[in-house]
């Protein structure tokens, strides 16, 4: 690893956009949702049905038990989870280049982050 690389990447000589830290956090939440869904689906399906004797299959409203619990119940739960996930964990962020000013970007404007001020390490705008 080259030290000069580290120095360049650690550079804080420009003002970071604090909205990106929020976005990264939300991306991790989405990955966690996917991972949780996958683990629950695989564990239940394989736990009930993996390498079993077909004779022992039990049925719930017409579906094999393992499919009922994963394909209907787990899928149903994970259809509802995102509502709460987004309500409680996601931040409403202005997507325009300069937040709070609408699409038309003026040059003399002050930087301002709507509602999410100072999240995620804004550093001083260096060399100007």
């Amino acid at each position, binding site marked *: 690893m080259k030290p000069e690389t580290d120095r*360049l*990447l650690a*550079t804080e000589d*420009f*003002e*970071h*956009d604090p*909205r*990106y830290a*929020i*976005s*990264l956090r*939300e*991306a991790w*939440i*989405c*990955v966690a*949702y*996917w991972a949780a*869904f*996958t683990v629950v*689906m*695989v564990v239940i*399906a*394989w736990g009930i*049905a*993996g*390498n*079993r*004797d*077909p*004779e022992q*299959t039990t*049925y719930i409203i*017409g579906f*094999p038990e*393992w*499919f009922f619990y*994963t*394909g*209907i119940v787990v*899928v149903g739960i*994970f*259809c509802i989870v*995102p*509502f709460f*996930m*987004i309500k409680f964990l*996601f*931040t*409403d*962020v*202005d*997507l325009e*280049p300069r937040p709070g000013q609408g699409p038309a*970007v003026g040059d003399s404007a002050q*930087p301002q982050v709507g509602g999410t001020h100072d999240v995620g390490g804004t550093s001083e*705008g260096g*060399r*100007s």
Partner: protein
Amino acid sequence: MRWDIAAPIIILLGAMAPIAYYAYSKSKGAADQTGNYYLGGRSLGPWVLIFTVLASAASAGTFIGTAGLTYSQGYGWVWGALMQMPSAILALGLLGKKYAIVARKLNLLTFTDFFKERYESRAVTFFTAVGMVIFLVAYMVAQFVGGARVLQSITGIPYWALVVVFAGMVALYTSFGGFLAAAFTDAAQGIIMFLGGIALWVVVLTAVGGFTAVEEGTQALEGDLVVLPGASGFDLPMMISYAIMFGLLLAALPHVSVRAMSYRDSAALHTALYVGPAILAVFTLGFGAMGVFGRVLYPEAELADLVLPTLIVDQLPGPVAGAILAAPLAAVMSTVDSMILVVSGALVRDLYVGFIKPDMPDHQQYRAGTWVSLGIGLIVLIGALQPPDFLQYLILFAIGGLEAGLFVPLIVGLYWKRGNALGAVLSLVGGMGYFLLASNFFDVLAFGMMPVAPAAAFALALYVAAGYVGPPPSRRVLVKFWGTQDAIDRMETEEAVRF
């Protein structure tokens, strides 16, 4: 010929013309014509957004393929198809608000624009654009071939007529209407798919005689249709592969991920995120699980892919059957229209403007985009009339290869400062190469999984290694992708002074 079935299909799909015209008249006269043509001016609200994402992602495979595989190999396939349920959350959530903000700041319009700015490497731009063009064109041809064959066998309308009408209509409305036409028709098609999925359950359950009858019928089936891995072959590595391939990596498919820079605001994104999984679950369960019901009703069908269409036609009066059968066709159309625009953008913006004529003015790009889209649509139409023999090999490679190559440089590059051009080239070439070798020549490389999963892991390893070994991204890139708009402006002023 069954005109009673064909008529509602033609009417429903003909309704796309006025929708496309509405979109066209809406985007006409906008200031930034190219931006409007390829991204609809970043104006999508939540419902159009979610349906265009899901309808673009869900192809004929979801509607015909899954039911066919379920019919012949059992419940494992419905389970596997359900693994695509989180795909809306991944496609929109992984790229997330940062992608939308960066796209606005740097005026990114096409899938490759991101790669161009982030890696500042002509090799990366070139590989991404060319790879997309080849594989997506092949994939579009296959979509029409699949859709038209099914419809031909059901309605008796000649194959060539179906291809000319459907492919021709998609080519016309997409090329002249641009992104908004594609998005609005996607929404209409998505609603057809959604209602079709629900109607099918109600109708088929009634026809079979309710859940108890299904249960009795299912119990009478061969045992390996209802267990894991059973006939479907869904063992643990296969299950995890499907979660990765249809869930996680789908976020990197170009025609899906451009939609992540098309929405209006955070509120549109949030709504799309939480309604997405439920809608995709209806698509998948609605049509996929019918494979089992089909097995109960028709234990001895010759062609598994035709069981679901046959079931629909047998159990329902002609016009209703036609309306439900419009769903798989809508899936084909909504996938293809998105792909045409992505490929057109790659040809015009990324290859022609990028490499040959950098100073092409906005209205010329817009006009070129229209004609190139029309040209692509026609090439696909001709390809579908005479499917070339090598087509199936390209298809096999198309989605997996693109996912394996593009995911890491797109998603990791967006958030990880160290990600550099060397890593992007290595993971593009390495990911696709590994996928090709593992799927065609060396089975051991796949470790018992679908080859795309280890290929993506290999691409990630290359990308991370190159991030530590190779030269870091320039300060320019860091400011553009991590700085505020003011920092970017300041940097550009400094550069202007220096030179």
